[in-house]
């Protein structure tokens, strides 16, 4: 896949052009680095090296500054994630109520460690610090839909529901 371009509503646009467009849409230019990276990630699914370069050029900062910010925050991904994101919550309440074994279960089922993507590019498995759904722990998010009170024997049906 071309990492130097993004497809927006069926149109392929070069990443430099897209970064310029996104920057124009931002209400404030001060402190734009994090919002711009969030928007790039929304478009691309991750932040490609080409995007880091384009953002650095547009904001007139060095690539190392952009890379430093992108690696500091847990939200930013520097490699392309799978088609479906599984995020298992490991907040305190979820951890104590089986979140870890739920994570281990997905990890075994998919044959990947947390933070990785399956070889076919279908699933990525991640942990999240807290979904704020502690009263219904253990919780997880599947493509940003939050499920509460998930047990290990639901893993098959959750995976089967994703094509």
């Amino acid at each position: 896949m071309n990492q130097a371009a993004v497809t927006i509503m069926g149109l392929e646009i070069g990443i430099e052009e897209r970064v310029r467009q996104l920057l124009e849409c931002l209400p404030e230019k001060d402190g734009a680095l994090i919002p711009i990276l969030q928007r790039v990630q929304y478009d691309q699914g991750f932040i490609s090296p080409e995007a880091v370069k384009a953002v650095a050029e547009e904001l007139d900062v060095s690539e190392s500054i952009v890379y430093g910010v992108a690696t500091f925050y847990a939200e930013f991904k520097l490699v392309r994630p799978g088609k479906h994101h599984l995020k298992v919550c490991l907040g305190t309440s979820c951890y104590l109520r089986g979140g870890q074994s739920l994570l281990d279960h997905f990890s075994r089922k998919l044959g990947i460690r947390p933070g990785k993507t399956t070889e076919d590019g279908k699933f990525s498995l991640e942990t999240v610090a807290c979904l704020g759904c502690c009263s219904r722990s253990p919780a997880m998010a599947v493509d940003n839909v939050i499920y509460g009170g998930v047990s290990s024997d639901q893993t098959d049906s959750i995976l089967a529901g994703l094509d």
Partner: protein
Amino acid sequence: MKRASDAQALQEIQKDAKKAWLELLQGEHPLICTGLSTCGISAKASECQLGIESELADRGIAFRSMKVGCLGLCYAEPLIYIKMPNRPLVCYGHLHLHNIASLVDAVFDNNNINNNLTLGAIDLPEIKVLPVPGLLSLWEHPMIKPQVRIALRNCGLIDPEDIRHYIAQGGYASLAKALAMKPEGVIEEVKISGLRGRGGAGFPTGTKWEFCRRAPGKEKYLICNADEGDPGAFMDRSILEGDPHAVLEGMLIAAYAIGCHQGYIYCRAEYPLALKRLDIALQEARELGLLGEDILGSGMSFDISIKEGAGAFVCGEETALMASLEGRRGMPRTRPPFPANSGLWGKPTNINNVETLANLAQIIDRGGKWYSSFGVGRSRGTKTLSLAGAVRRPGLIEVPMGMTLQQIIFEIGGGVPGDKACKGVLTGGPSGGCIPYFSLDVPVDYESLTEKGSIMGSGSMIIIDEDICIVDLAKFFLTFTQRESCGKCTPCRIGTRQMLAILEKISEGQAVIGDIARLEGLANAVKNGSLCGLGGTAPNPVLTALRYFREEFEEHILNKICPSLVCKNLVAYTIDPERCKGCGLCKESCPAGAILGEKKAVHAINAVACIKCGVCMAVCPEKFKAVAKEVARCA
């Protein structure tokens, strides 16, 4: 809708909003309210709502529906309230896709509004109907009765995406009242209330405002800290999802008192629904003229932008939060200069937490004295607390400061489920600590919790039962703080890593007794030497664990035993040959291929290959219960 060009116009709008609110509650068609917060949605509230609505459509019954936020009774979610004409508004809980048809049968066909799914009647002053014999008020529910709901006053009762609902409850009238006062008068009222920062640090809010107001400079900023990073806390999410205008009104009052023209809400990206509802609330407030230029004809101008956090716990610290707002790595810096003098972009800045702001409209409306009539000592007012973990009724509550942990866990939370004993409660998340079962008579206020070695923090309460291993728990918290340490100062960056290494050794049964002293020494060094609150409080879970449960650490070290059977290296799974019927389920499920045995013959676990995942125990049929977990002294 008209614009609220001045206080008079706002009153007109309120009159219309109240009328619409009364029509909603007193209308001739049934009203269906669904609790659609993240917690409710995760419990399939939307599906249940659609289910009820399609049942009604099948019957040809006309109805109105409305979304509400979270009432806090999360244990019974999804919650749906139904109001039949001329009957009370009744809250139903524990709904499922398979019991909603029977609920519709009962309520709509058999006129039985008080049934097995009923939690109670939501008594609102606007609902004037005859009481139903036997139907209890929801305000008498054991989880709600002891509460005093100030910050949560509207949560679960109004549509958070409709500003008219907020205005109908008297919303934005406090802003009008504040604008008629002098800014100094507003600050004085907040000082009288005794309100302290609800994000954790507990600094007096009025004093903080005064510093910022007095700071030289024309341009000043106000930031709402909605970066609720404490795993286990969800009060800010609930308020933002259930009553966002309470926070906006609080920000407007603060901005007027301090003299700010620009505000920011820094909200974590993990809360997409809160972000969406905030966005709607901001648009609505702008349309009414409650944000922007010349607010309510007072000449004051103020607007708010939302900034989405990017996932860093340390950004809850105010100087780190500002670095993040400026687009940099979220690393804290030394203070002074304090943000009140030099904050965002070097300008005077005031930062308040969501819950702190949500209290303000009520303080201005009813007076600081009224607010300070709740609480004890130097902790005045109420505190929202999130209950989770081993408790029968997890959820969100708001109680006067000074209520004991005993009351909160057992009376409100209903105690520990099953036949387990309560081991303690974790307060303040990764910055707090574990208060043991024998100290549950401690009142919940800033000072008393600090005295016990923990902190109030944001108010998360995670109850633990006897199945929890304290060493594993300390390790869990240190894993979190070590990962979230920004790396700027050495005590936190290296100290937390070394503490974690010792804890790992202990949980693996590889430690020696001198390691406890080393751990304590390191903990104190990290506590005293760190730059910001993250490092300064990170050792608290370890220090309280050592203070109250030292013998459990000694068991791990001296006897190489994990009494709660949690630490993997110190447990073993075995198959009881007397009970095993050779069904083969465990062998099939074992991911490590560690189970041996032919079909219909007794199986056995190869201890060397076993990864201790516990799958065999989970799949072994209840009637056999052949797999046991037991103490294994490591070699």
